[in-house]
């Protein structure tokens, strides 16, 4: 029974990492959003499982937030936004998926190398969890770096943040997880609204580089 719980937690965390890889791989925006939804769902499941395993009721709230906010509201609004901005069909050019994948795998390895020896003391569930979480964080960052499209970068950030929530949930009996997840949800809400407000189509800085040079040369 004990083992089973751990295995399930593992399964979920692993699935999350897998989802991050899929995000790295996916190049159609709408597809990205779907995968992100999946990501969020898995997150909420694993958080819920953690809640059950640590029988920490407040984690259920976090799981709830994840399920409702990240798996429903965010994807919904994102879809509307990309429709509004007429970029829902854009297929962005992701240079060298293979290389990205390799780097991703390297990052996972790195996170394991960094984390496992570090967390020797912690209980097994926590340590694998945190290792996976680190992997997800790094992958999210990698995605932000490799993608040029604003929305996909946002999604990268959100996956990164999912990793954080996973870590927070995984840390046994860590207080304030709810507050933190709430704070983060606000942050993300801001970002999404930001995209919408600032009408950012292609990239965060929606002017081409030459333009930038001209503007900033004098700064």
């Amino acid at each position, binding site marked *: 029974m004990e083992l089973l719980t751990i295995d399930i937690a593992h399964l979920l965390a692993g699935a999350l990492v897998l989802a991050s890889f899929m995000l790295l791989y996916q190049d159609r925006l709408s597809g990205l959003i779907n995968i992100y939804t999946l990501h969020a769902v898995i997150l909420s499941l694993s958080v819920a499982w953690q809640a059950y395993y640590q029988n920490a009721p407040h984690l259920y709230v976090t799981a709830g937030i994840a399920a409702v906010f990240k798996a429903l509201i965010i994807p919904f609004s994102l879809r509307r936004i990309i429709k509004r901005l007429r970029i829902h069909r854009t297929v962005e050019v992701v240079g060298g998926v293979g290389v990205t994948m390799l780097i991703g795998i390297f990052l996972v390895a790195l996170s394991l190398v*960094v984390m496992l020896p570090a967390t020797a003391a912690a209980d097994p569930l926590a340590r694998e969890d*945190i290792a996976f*979480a680190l992997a997800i964080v790094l992958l999210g960052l990698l995605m932000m770096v490799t993608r040029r499209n604003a929305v996909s970068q946002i999604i990268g950030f959100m996956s*990164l943040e999912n990793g954080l929530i996973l870590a927070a949930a995984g840390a*046994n009996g860590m207080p304030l997880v709810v507050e933190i997840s709430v*704070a983060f949800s606000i942050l993300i809400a801001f970002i999404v609204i930001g995209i919408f407000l600032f009408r950012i189509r292609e990239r*965060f800085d929606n002017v081409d580089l030459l333009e930038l040079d001209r503007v900033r040369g*004098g*700064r």
Partner: protein
Amino acid sequence: MSSDLFLVSNAVVGIPAVAAIALALEPKYRRSAIINLCASGVTFLFALALLIVEPEHSGYLFVDDLNIVFVVLSTFIGFTTSVYSASYIEHEIETGRLTSTNVRFYHAMYQSLMCAMNLALLASNIGLMWVAIEVATLTTVLMVGIYRTPHALEAAWKYFILGSVGIALALFGTILIYMAAEPILGQGYDAMVWTTLMQQAPQFNPRMLNVAFVFLMLGYGTKVGLAPMHAWLPDAHAEGPTPISAVLSGLLLNVALYAVLRFKMLLTANAAAITPGPLMITLGLASLIMAAFMLYRRGDIKRLFAYSSIEHMGIIAFAFGMGGPLANFAGLLHMTMHSLTKSAIFFSVGHIAQVKGTQKIADIRGLTQSQPALGWSLVAGVVAIIGLPPLGLFMSEFLVVSSTFARQPLLAIPLVFGLLLAFGALLLRLTGMAFGEPSHDEGEVKASMLPVYAHLSLVLLAGIYLPSHLVTWFQNVARLLG
């Protein structure tokens, strides 16, 4: 803990919060400016009161020698800035760059920023501190973007994204710290409280701490504006309203620095963990020299001083990285002096930009001729910031350089190199702006020079005479920092 409600520290956090709500409801900008001013003033008084009352430790807030330095400093600058922003904002409304709704929003955000920063400083636990800093980021983002010009939005957005990534990294570090503490302190709240953490730090798992520190250093370092995470800082300073530039340089950077220092202490307490010094020194030197070179190509006056903030944050990080009583003392002093001076500079720069109707350095000439008060105060500010006596930054730079050279001559050389570079750049620009044939003025401003004079005279005083209380207090803190 009902008695905690009546604690002074609560007031320091609470008053701005209340004021923020009040200001959100107040439509008249004049009145709201006054409310803003009063609120900041009262907060400052309460912060002073913290000095008198015995150190308190309530559930979520706590006061010790270290953070009280920061609290007093930030509330004071918050107060003077509110005085300044009254006249600044008035001019902005007259010229129609801001609407009264903007201003209403601005004031509310200003107070909530104050609240968030005080909370971050007083927070007794790492999670709460993180939340507070995150809120502070959000509010500043909104204020930076307040002008709604493309550049302002771009700056805000850049700041937002880089800031959020930094915040995320910091959170991960926080979680790791908790996980490092949890086996010793047991699950739950205690494993996040500074006091207990500091006591038990020696037993923590060092490798965990190392990883955590990497994340925290990069995460909060982003907010400090250390290279290579500095990119948000110049734009945010340049495009936002000047009071906010002053607050950013004078306060927010310090708050982030405070967080870094706290965690540095944690690591130094643990013998087995890596010594955080070298990392801080490296980042510090990198920021110093990078910023020094960047200063030469600046065409925008506010960006110029933003980069100089990066430079000084580099110096401070370097000093704290060196450690030891002298260097730490110097670091604290330098931080205080830099906050005062830099905000003073931004005050006068704001008015100068209003008078000249531009932020382009090339179009600002002969200020001492056309605008004696502004011009000479700019000269005084720059002279102070490039570390010339008898102003306060000279003392700290003296201590940093000489103590470093005595201990690590090879480290002192890049330091001095960077300082000289920055000196040259700022002096060059100053000569162009303050002297020569004056360029024509767009319009007159009712400049409120009071805050500038207040800051500069404080800096001057500190350069000549440091009251013994302050010294002993700083020395305690320096000892605390190890």
